[in-house]
């Protein structure tokens, strides 16, 4: 019932956003505007950059878990973290870095604990069919990590060391320099954590016992160098991103370990060279990327030493032109070639796929817009059934930012290399998965007086995933990958944002709620359709931000409902509410400045798990002292 009250509270704010829709002043200003959306009919959002900055000492998994509707399934701080976007599996979320897909070709998914939010300038989320405009395969959606030059920004050094509970030390450095036509940005992130937090073990032994989490040490290094050069109509950029993570993987609470047993080492080198050109109605962007990743997993007990090396070469070309005054036409070509060396396949394997898409975006007057995309994928030498996306958006009342939008998509995802070649059980004759997606949404952007703005978006979606790849027990007692899964996912998402600014006082409220129903569509007779495991039906989060002059505070609340951990929904992990506080004071006397930030994670010391029998830390503290020096 306490959750019920929480939901009602979250929704009570919704009607407030529309109460001031008769303000005439803004009507005059807005009437002449086209639709503001760059992708009419589809849903996209971005992580608030101020909030993103506050998570630069943590990982992307923590940021998305607490500040978005994505559900992150994590083995604990520093442990492997995968996502469920709109009730889909981890491999149905595509992750792009500056337009290049960085999901592991072997696994078909990303470990979000490896990414530090401070290494990127922005994080965009594309929901459902919106992701297909960036690349294929995002049945749930996509996460885009991006870097961009601040041409007019000053040169400067930003240093931010931090210290926190459970032996957590980290440091972030960003160095920006350059002129109006040349920019260089260097970022460095170092992170070490003993991660030895106490937790209540109530499953091992006769009585609940306060234990210390052991063998979960984490060491993380990340370095990113960006170079930008612009001349006339073109920009040339080069980026190189090195990452190295070493971690002990603790067992479940059911196992008493004497010493570190499982270890994982992840190393990656990602690089992109890009040329961007824009003149008149013509715009194009050519990118060449090389990604080399190594994942080593060692289990002493199981005598496993799994070594996995992947090299991926990607070419991407995006061409854009104005076909008419209201219509923009784009061409997207993506070519990916991966080479896998691993002791888990019978021999080295390679895979090649090419996708070509054409999209058109049309905006008529200030009330109507539409987007359409048609994509063809060449998987090796096989052409897939074409994918498409189509969306429309309509401003309901002239001059007022109330938009009704709807979209329909077909999206395909190729099997991962492990699905095809893992020994034993890989199936080289797997077909691609595909999904049919539909959504309808309502978006409101409302300026109420000059000091208060209110935005809200409500979306209903449904997705039918077919030929989904599942690993099933095979004839010879090992599992094999097969195209037998059928999943129906549907749900509702809401986001409400209020901003109040008056003199030095800024108050913000961002709330989100999502209801997700994701079931196996192939239900046997006389059996209920069960919610898929580890997908919460109810999720909500809110961020209250407050700043007055130099002082600021964020209160972040994250609610995750119960998650079933058995196929027949007979057992589940209970829901939980987490509260985090991030507060600080900025000292900014001219060209130098400092920011003292103090964070309390899990304020009320909530016991919770996102994976059964893997405890999460209780209350913890983190202090950062950030300095900037601007030239």
């Amino acid at each position, binding site marked *: *019932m306490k959750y019920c009250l929480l939901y009602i509270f979250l929704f009570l704010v919704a009607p407030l956003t*529309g109460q001031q829709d008769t303000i005439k002043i803004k009507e005059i200003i807005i009437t002449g505007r086209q639709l503001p959306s760059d992708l009419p009919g589809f849903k996209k959002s971005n992580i608030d950059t101020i909030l993103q900055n506050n998570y630069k000492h943590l990982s992307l998994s923590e940021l998305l878990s607490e500040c978005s509707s994505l559900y992150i399934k994590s083995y604990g701080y520093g442990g492997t973290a995968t996502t469920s976007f709109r009730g889909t599996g981890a491999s149905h979320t595509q992750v792009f870095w500056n337009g290049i897909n960085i999901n592991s070709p072997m696994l078909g998914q990303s470990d979000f604990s490896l990414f530090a939010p401070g290494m990127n300038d922005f994080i965009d989320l594309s929901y459902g069919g919106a992701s297909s405009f960036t690349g294929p395969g995002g049945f749930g959606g996509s996460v885009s990590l991006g870097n961009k030059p601040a041409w007019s920004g000053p040169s400067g050094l930003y240093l931010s060391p931090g210290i926190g509970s459970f032996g957590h030390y980290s440091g972030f450095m960003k160095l920006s320099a350059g002129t109006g036509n040349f920019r260089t940005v260097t970022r460095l992130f170092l992170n070490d954590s003993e991660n030895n937090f106490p937790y209540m073990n109530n499953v091992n032994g006769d009585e609940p016992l306060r234990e210390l989490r052991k063998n979960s040490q984490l060491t993380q290094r990340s370095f990113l160098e960006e170079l930008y050069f612009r001349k006339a109509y073109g920009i040339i950029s080069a980026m190189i991103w090195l990452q190295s993570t070493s971690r002990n993987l603790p067992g479940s609470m*059911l196992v008493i370990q004497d010493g570190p047993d499982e270890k994982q080492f992840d190393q990656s080198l990602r690089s992109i060279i890009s040329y961007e050109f824009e003149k008149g109605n013509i715009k194009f962007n050519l990118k060449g990327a090389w990604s080399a990743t190594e994942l080593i997993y060692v289990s002493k007990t199981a005598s496993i030493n799994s070594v996995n090396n992947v090299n991926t070469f990607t070419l991407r070309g995006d061409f854009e032109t104005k076909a008419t005054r209201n219509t923009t036409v784009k061409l997207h070509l993506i070519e990916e070639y991966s080479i896998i060396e691993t002791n888990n396949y019978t021999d080295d394997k390679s895979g090649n796929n090419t996708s070509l898409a054409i999209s058109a975006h049309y905006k008529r007057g200030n009330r109507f817009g539409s987007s359409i995309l048609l994509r063809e994928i060449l998987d090796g030498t096989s052409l897939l059934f074409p994918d498409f996306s189509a969306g429309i958006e309509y401003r309901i009342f002239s001059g007022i930012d109330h938009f009704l939008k709807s979209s329909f998509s077909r999206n395909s995802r190729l099997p991962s290399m492990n699905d095809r070649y893992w020994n034993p059980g890989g199936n080289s004759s797997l077909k691609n998965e595909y999904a049919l997606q539909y959504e309808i949404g309502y978006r409101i952007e409302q300026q109420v007086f000059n000091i208060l703005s209110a935005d809200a978006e409500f979306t209903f979606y449904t997705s039918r995933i077919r030929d989904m790849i599942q690993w099933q027990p095979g004839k*010879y007692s090992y599992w094999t990958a097969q195209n037998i899964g059928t999943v129906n996912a549907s749900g509702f998402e809401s986001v409400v944002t209020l901003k109040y600014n008056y003199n030095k006082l800024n108050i913000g409220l961002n709330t989100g709620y999502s209801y997700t129903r994701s079931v196996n569509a192939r239900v046997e007779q006389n059996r209920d359709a069960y919610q898929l495991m580890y997908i919460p039906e109810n999720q909500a989060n809110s961020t209250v931000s407050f700043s007055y002059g130099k002082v600021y505070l964020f209160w972040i609340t994250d609610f995750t409902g119960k998650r079933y*951990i*058995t196929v027949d929904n007979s057992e589940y992990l209970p*829901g939980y509410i987490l509260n985090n506080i991030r507060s600080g004071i900025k000292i900014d006397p001219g060209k130098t400045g400092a920011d003292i930030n103090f964070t309390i994670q899990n304020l009320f010391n909530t016991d919770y798990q996102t994976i059964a*029998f893997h405890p999460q830390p209780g209350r913890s503290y983190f202090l950062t002292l950030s300095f900037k020096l601007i030239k």
Partner: protein
Amino acid sequence: MRKLIFNLLVLIALASCNEPDEPAFVDTVINRVSFNGFFIVNEGNFGWGNGSLTYFSYDSIKTYNNIFRSVNNKPLGDVPYSMMFYGENIYIVVNNSEKIEVIDRKSLESIKTIYGFISPRNIALAGPNKAYVTSMYSDSLKILDLKENEVTGSINIKNSSESILVKGSKAFVANWIEGNEIFIVNTETDELVDSLEVGPEPESMVSDKNGNIWVLCNGGWMREHFAELICINPLNNSILKKYIFPSKMNSPLNLQADSDGDTLLYIDGNIKAMNIASSDLPAEAFIERDESMFYKIGINPVNGDIVATDAIDYQQNGYFMIFDRKGKFISDHTAGIIPGNVFFMVNQGHIIE
């Protein structure tokens, strides 16, 4: 329009509200277990900690799932694999939790949890108040004192171990993973005394009515070798007979002997049955698998009933089927996730008709 949206949202919010969390386990808690039934250790998914214990009562013809947790209010652990009855106690070997749960044979209440193992698999009585525990990922057997319920020592056999069978003062220990040997341990001195080369990956062993030991070597999961069924004379540790399976794709598992000790049963897709005097491996199925995928079998030592488990997709709850000694289907019942080995605790005269 705004009111409509608002009302809709409130309705959804109310519909999505949950009652306070209730315990997930709703099985009736039984206070005592009859001595006429069998246990199935449900392995659960590796690393997920959802292993459980099922008890089927011949008296009530009823299945009690998740009975360990119902009685003890704690999960059994990660991959429970085998059991042993001794005196008033039951010893449950929980592989990936690296422990043995000791419970009362009648009430099933927890008595003690014994730690100090590395990937324990099977347990066998090796003398008065003494048991050996095999280990999948270490080179030693653990010696268990059944009176004090503690580990008292280990026997280095320099290889991993899987199934174990004790005959007199000899313990025959199979070296399963990537192995091809049976090690013989003197149970009086707790020393490795001999070894015997058999086929690749000896997986299971039983004793027949003549006192001979049969070893099923499944050939290895890479399917690079032929599986073998081998008969050993335990007196002089010599091989009496050897049967080689016709194809490398044969992957027989879970050898069992019937209650008379003259017929061997194993899973090779279907359930196969072979008289110990037969000169050839059986070509025909004894029990066709039809839609099922047999995972483990057990044979009632009193009436010869055959219990076969089916893990279905290894994710949802599996089930078990009961057949009579002639292979005629009697009934099927739901078990836990990945229902594995079957252990009988029966009195004479209890037969399901």
